[in-house]
């Protein structure tokens, strides 16, 4: 019996006259890995940012574990965001903190944990993403792949119910993509619920529980990887998948 964790209904966002998101709906069950694909400007990033209200949707409702999120109430919003981890394309590590402090600060300042206890947890999370040796380094001393893994550890330390990943490998050199994808694969295998926008079609094909194709602010087609990648109904989906397979697909 699938257990819905996150339910998004009819989320829309306009910037002036431009509609960047037109009524997106989505149900995410426990352990799902939903992959968002689509051309740039399709609304993938906006959808992810609307889910944790970094962008305020103009319309739409969101439920986490069957409880509606009342984002106008600041306390509800802050509590909700703790349960929804976010990974950004350009990492956004706190530049003035070491890797360890980056992972620890949310636990201390937001959750009110004791520093020592939070520190132990931070070390454990950094170990989990393979960065045990780098806990004392500042972001400027880490490679892109290491930075992204710190940011994953930082999100995990908050014990999120669901993680949103916004093109987590798009800013990385090709040889660093693998280490980040390996960490994400690991998370999936351990049952983490995730929504991820990516162009890594091979990764999506082998791990996604559903692939969602977005275009012009709409979800235009969705289905299992087999269906979307090989038997898409929509001509535009087929064309897009063929194109990204050419660029990202070969190396499995």
């Amino acid at each position, binding site marked *: 019996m699938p257990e819905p964790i996150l339910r998004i209904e009819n989320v829309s966002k306009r910037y002036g006259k431009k509609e960047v998101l037109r009524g997106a709906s989505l149900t995410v069950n426990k352990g799902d890995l939903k992959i968002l694909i689509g051309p740039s400007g399709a609304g993938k990033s906006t959808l992810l940012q609307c889910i944790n209200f*970094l962008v305020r949707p103009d319309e739409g409702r969101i439920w986490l574990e069957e409880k509606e999120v009342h984002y106008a109430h600041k306390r509800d919003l802050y509590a909700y965001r703790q349960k929804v981890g976010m990974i950004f394309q350009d990492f*956004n590590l706190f530049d003035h903190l070491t890797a360890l402090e980056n992972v620890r600060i949310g636990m201390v300042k937001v959750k009110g944990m004791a520093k020592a206890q939070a520190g132990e947890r931070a070390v454990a999370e950094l170990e989990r993403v393979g960065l045990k040796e780098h806990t004392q380094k500042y*972001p400027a001393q880490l490679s892109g792949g290491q930075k992204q893994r710190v940011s994953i550890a930082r999100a995990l330390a908050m014990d999120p119910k669901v993680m949103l990943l916004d093109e987590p490998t798009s800013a990385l050199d090709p040889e660093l993509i693998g280490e980040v994808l390996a960490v994400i694969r690991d998370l999936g295998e351990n049952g983490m619920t995730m929504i991820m926008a990516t162009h890594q079609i091979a990764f999506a094909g082998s791990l996604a529980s559903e692939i969602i194709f977005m275009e012009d602010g709409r979800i235009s087609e969705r289905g299992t990887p087999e269906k979307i990648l090989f038997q898409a109904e929509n001509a535009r989906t087929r064309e897009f998948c063929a194109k990204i397979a050419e660029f990202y697909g070969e190396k499995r």
Partner: protein
Amino acid sequence: MEEWLYIQNEVYPALLKGFWVSLALIVPSAIFGLVIGIIVGVLRVYGNRPVMAAANAFVVLFRGIPLVVQLFIWYFGLPYIKIYLAPFVAAVLGFSLCSGAYHSEYVRGALMSIRRGQMLAAQSLGFSKVKMIFSIILPQAIRRALPGCGNEIIYLIKYSSLAYMITCVELTGEGKILASNSFKYTEIFLIIGACYLAMTSVASLLLSRVEDRLRLPGFEHQRI
């Protein structure tokens, strides 16, 4: 010989007394000024509309009126509404407010230079706005504002000499009294000039120490 005795018996004790008064003016003014500057700078960037407008008005006022005029208002003007400030208090008040207005501009610039991603990351972890400002934004912004704020502190050391205008006799004031008694203007003001130069030199040394202490990878000077 007579010169030397004059310097030893009259100039030295008077100027030393004045120096301590100057220092007593500068240190609290620098601290209050910096605190006011940080608060006003934060309000100018992150305050809601009325708060932002009030903070901006503060800067227009205290940066726009000559400091001597401000000091006169605090010392000679306030008694009209039955508020009597000691010269020393009026001077520290005037210096702190004026200095704060200038600091706030450096702080504001630094706050605006922090990348938006830092805020998005903090928000996505569940930080409230206040916690985000104090734990994430300010620690980075202060590092960037430091050179400008140091400049303002050096400036404060020099304009502390204006306290003499409202009868708070500090280094310059003591010098003026000595000089008008002995008519040795050149000698005495050369000595006083050297004293200020020494103070500003020590201050800039201390400030660069502070910058070194706070320097982190990613925040250092980029040499081209």
